[in-house]
């Protein structure tokens, strides 16, 4: 092999140009973001405990600004790397086939695997909307929790959420969002495990099913909130 060298020739910086390293970084950041989905979900589900639950949760969070900001910083880093690599990899992949086939029959490719960049884009755009909606609270200023307080003087997150999701348009936006997340995750989960070398002939089919389960769970758990609100179960 190449003249004298033990171990890898990739220098620390060069390693991130390597196609496998890029994919691993995608996988790791992706797994991090999926983990965040679960953490976030715990907070969301406190809605079912009534105004007391989620408003307490909101207040606790806001009493710990360093934690919140550290968390946000971590998230932003994950997102930036994931998005940047996602765009870079997609552009490279498109450049790798400049002339398309006139006829194409896929044997194995799924809707999810083909649309990662688009589901990713949808997730990104609606994420901005979501931040404007619940963090900056610009979308429905009349029910913004920053101004609206509950009986204990806490920001009334519960009312903000419930009144927002009563608007069908807003619920629909979140439904689309979660659809995109589910599709994205249904490929992302097993793909990450494969990329990290954690798959084998026997385990890969398991991971594929696991990914579908994760996607279905995330979709159902998150969309249950607008669904129950619209159905009048949560008031």
């Amino acid at each position: 092999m190449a003249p004298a060298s033990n171990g890898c020739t990739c220098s620390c910086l060069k390693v991130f140009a390597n196609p496998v390293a890029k994919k691993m970084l995608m996988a790791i950041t992706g797994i991090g973001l999926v983990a965040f989905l679960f953490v976030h979900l715990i907070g969301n589900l406190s809605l079912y405990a009534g105004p007391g639950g989620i408003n307490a949760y909101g207040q606790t969070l806001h009493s710990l600004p360093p934690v919140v900001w550290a968390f946000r910083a971590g998230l932003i880093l994950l997102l930036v790397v994931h998005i940047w690599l996602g765009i870079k990899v997609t552009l490279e992949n498109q450049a790798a086939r400049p002339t398309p086939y006139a006829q194409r029959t896929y044997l194995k490719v799924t809707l999810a695997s083909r649309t990662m960049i688009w589901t990713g884009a949808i997730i990104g755009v609606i994420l901005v909307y979501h931040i404007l909606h619940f963090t900056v609270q610009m979308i429905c200023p009349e029910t913004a929790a920053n101004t609206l307080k509950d009986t204990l003087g806490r920001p009334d997150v519960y009312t903000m959420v419930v009144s927002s999701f009563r608007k069908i348009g807003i619920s629909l936006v979140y439904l689309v969002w979660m659809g995109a997340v589910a599709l994205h995750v249904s490929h992302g989960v097993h793909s990450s495990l494969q990329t990290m070398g954690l798959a084998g002939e026997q385990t890969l089919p398991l991971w594929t099913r696991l990914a579908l389960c994760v996607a279905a769970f995330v979709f159902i758990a998150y969309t249950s909130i607008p669904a129950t609100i619209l159905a009048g179960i949560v008031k």
Partner: protein
Amino acid sequence: MNLNLYVWRQKGPNAPGKLEQLQAKNISPDMSFLEMLDEVNEDLVRNGKEPIAFDHDCREGICGTCSQVINGIPHGPQERTTVCQLHMRKFKDGDSIYIEPWRAKAFPLIKDLIVDRSALDRIIQAGGYTSCHTGGVPDGNAILIPKPDADTAMDAAECIGCGACVAACPNGSAMLFTSAKVSQLASLPQGRAEAAQRVCVMTEAMLNEGFGNCSNHYECQAACPKGIKVSFIAKLNREFLKAQIK
């Protein structure tokens, strides 16, 4: 039977190309796909027209030369079968068949259905070998190799280097090809010594040749005429990770 062919025709790398409609008449179901093209070509030549240029050699499914995308699938509709072993009985009278070359930036087109696959050779040249000298090696039985390892190495080594994985991959990635060689050598004690470096230089070569990234569509395994498994890609990934941690 009679068939309606739509064949990609292109005079040269920089010439414009298009699908040309051609008739294949009186085709016997016992013909191989390439023998059907032979017949079409003989007709073209007799009429003073240029025959369709296509790559082929051994015609028994092992040399990896033949390379056509048939109705949108590299090597055509039959599983685990190269174009040269595909027979016309898989088609029906009156069928339309689209025949296109492998398409990838790393495989520049030469003429009609012929592409330049030397990029795959360069990936091997980067490190797809053990650096043993001729002569001066130990007895073949000096290092025992557990049968499962030898079998895994053989599973990977069955790759014929046709490039169907690249042609099938929506990203034009050569990961399956590269991973087969990396896995073969990493499974054997003879290849372990250089395993870390090999996986790095071979994947770098992949990038330099303009292949896309692997995003785990697994389309390559489905198209591979030898059934090389994507579990070798996972193995390459593990080898890469090991090389970084070391």
